[in-house]
């Protein structure tokens, strides 16, 4: 069991009042709050060790490089990978753009196909749209069942000899659905396609082992897992990373440069052009330490408890529609919903008056909202510092919104 009281004491922002009420932060799916361990690790880096990495011949530069590489090793251990398989990026979005660009150059040509799902965040959709346009390839979308799950039958039909890439989200940031990545990977690998997983909502919340998932490339962001903004990860199988051409080019990613050509550095450095987000990587290392000390099994259990309580409360209110699976076990710690006839923005604004922060909008998943037949939705999402009492506060505030506007 997570000692939520002790955890909360680590997050300075939770002492804040919003509109005169204690902050109830229910938007960790957008970005998580940060414990002082992370804030201090970043500050300590700037105060004591700041220098550029991999270039200085002096003591500080060596310390900075060690800390940066130590962070890489921590992240690798956290997801069951080797350090050279961890490429630091600025976030999930950059990691997925890297994947789409480099895979496109390596193996996608005219008439080839890229399979995506209708529940993707724009970050795992638009890079593939752009790739298809650039290469004359075809984007093949796979639908979602009425229960909010990926239509595996449709997926099996969509995958063919022409499929070069299958890109899918691990945990949907709207429906909360946990997609069966091992099954997706099995279908894709049968035809030799590469599997790219958007793990932005899963790595922060579930125990993830990249070997067990069976994916080939996997992306996530530090800021959603207690770490700083500006740091993200692309994990890739080493053999694949070695074959992939670079995405961003410039300093650091090269071995030898002539005026008219260059050769590339080893992985992962081949993909880390320019000065990386060093302090942010160090902060992410501290975040991973924090999550590991809680234990990811426990983090998952805690999310599950809050999600179950929320689902139960929402489903028993007849003015609420919930999107996605109704079984908490089938979900990450994300619940999207709407109040009958009330725009989500009104719900979010009214809850904010009571210090409750929720997300309202299309959550960067417009095609999914079109599929659901709604312009927008409300979303609550949880993390290690949220309590069952906060869920109750949220639910009773929702009743007041309904009274005011329903």
């Amino acid at each position, binding site marked *: 069991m997570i000692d939520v009281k002790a955890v909360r004491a680590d997050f300075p922002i939770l002492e804040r009042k919003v509109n005169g009420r204690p902050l109830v932060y229910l938007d960790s799916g957008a970005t998580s709050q940060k414990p002082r361990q992370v804030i201090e690790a970043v500050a300590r880096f700037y105060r004591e060790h700041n220098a550029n990495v991999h270039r200085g011949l002096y003591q500080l530069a060596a310390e900075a490089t060690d800390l940066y590489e130590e962070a890489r090793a921590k992240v690798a251990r956290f997801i069951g990978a080797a350090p050279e398989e961890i490429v630091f990026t600025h976030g999930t979005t950059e990691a997925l753009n890297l994947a789409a660009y480099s895979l496109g150059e390596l193996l996608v040509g005219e008439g080839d196909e890229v399979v995506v799902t209708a529940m993707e965040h724009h970050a795992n959709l638009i890079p593939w749209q752009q790739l298809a346009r650039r290469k004359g390839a075809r984007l093949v979308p796979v639908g979602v069942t009425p229960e909010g799950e990926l239509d595996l039958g449709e997926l099996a039909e969509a995958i063919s000899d022409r499929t070069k890439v299958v890109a899918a989200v691990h945990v949907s940031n709207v429906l909360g659905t946990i997609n069966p990545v091992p099954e997706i990977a099995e279908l894709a690998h049968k035809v030799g396609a590469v599997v790219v997983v958007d793990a932005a909502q899963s790595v922060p919340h579930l125990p993830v082992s990249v070997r067990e998932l069976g994916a080939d490339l996997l992306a996530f962001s530090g800021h959603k897992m207690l770490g700083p903004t500006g740091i993200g990860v692309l994990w890739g199988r080493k053999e694949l990373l070695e074959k992939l051409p670079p995405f961003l080019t410039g300093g650091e990613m090269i071995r030898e440069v002539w005026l008219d050509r260059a050769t590339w550095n080893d992985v992962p450095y081949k993909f880390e052009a320019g000065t990386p987000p060093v302090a942010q990587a160090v902060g992410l290392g501290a975040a991973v330490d924090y999550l590991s000390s809680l234990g990811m099994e426990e983090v998952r259990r805690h999310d599950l408890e809050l999600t179950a309580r929320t689902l139960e409360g929402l489903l028993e209110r007849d003015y609420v529609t919930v999107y996605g699976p109704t079984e908490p076990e089938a979900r990450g710690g994300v619940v999207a919903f709407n109040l009958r006839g*009330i*725009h*989500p*923005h*009104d719900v979010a*604004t*009214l809850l904010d*008056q*009571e210090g409750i922060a929720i997300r309202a*909008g*299309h959550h960067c998943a417009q095609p999914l909202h079109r599929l659901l037949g709604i*312009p*927008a939705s409300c979303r609550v999402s949880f993390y290690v510092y949220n309590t069952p009492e906060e869920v109750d506060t949220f639910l009773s505030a929702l009743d*007041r*919104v309904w009274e*005011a*506007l329903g």
Partner: protein
Amino acid sequence: MSPYEEVILEHWRNPRNKGRLDAPDVDVVEANPLCGDVVRLQLRVRDGVVEDVRFDGRGCAISQAAASLLTDMIKGKPLAELKGMKDEHLLDALGGVIRTRLNCALLPLRALRKGLSSA
């Protein structure tokens, strides 16, 4: 819950001038694609004056209440006067609008301006 002043709640619950006009002189639709708010504004103009007005739409309480209130404000007014209408006129009449929602409140005014520029 205070950002929804009584005016907003009142117009949200009892919208004025909601519906359609036959053969309007001005007929405009304006939308906030990001949130799906839509306002349609129709005017009948006689001798440079707004003789009748209707609105229709869907979306949040603020955008729809603002549209309703705006129809009340412009009925019987000369077009020349409406062309000089400032954001503040509508926002003040609404009892003030929270910063994060100004876009919603001003949607019907954008529709009016679009309609006037083509009238």
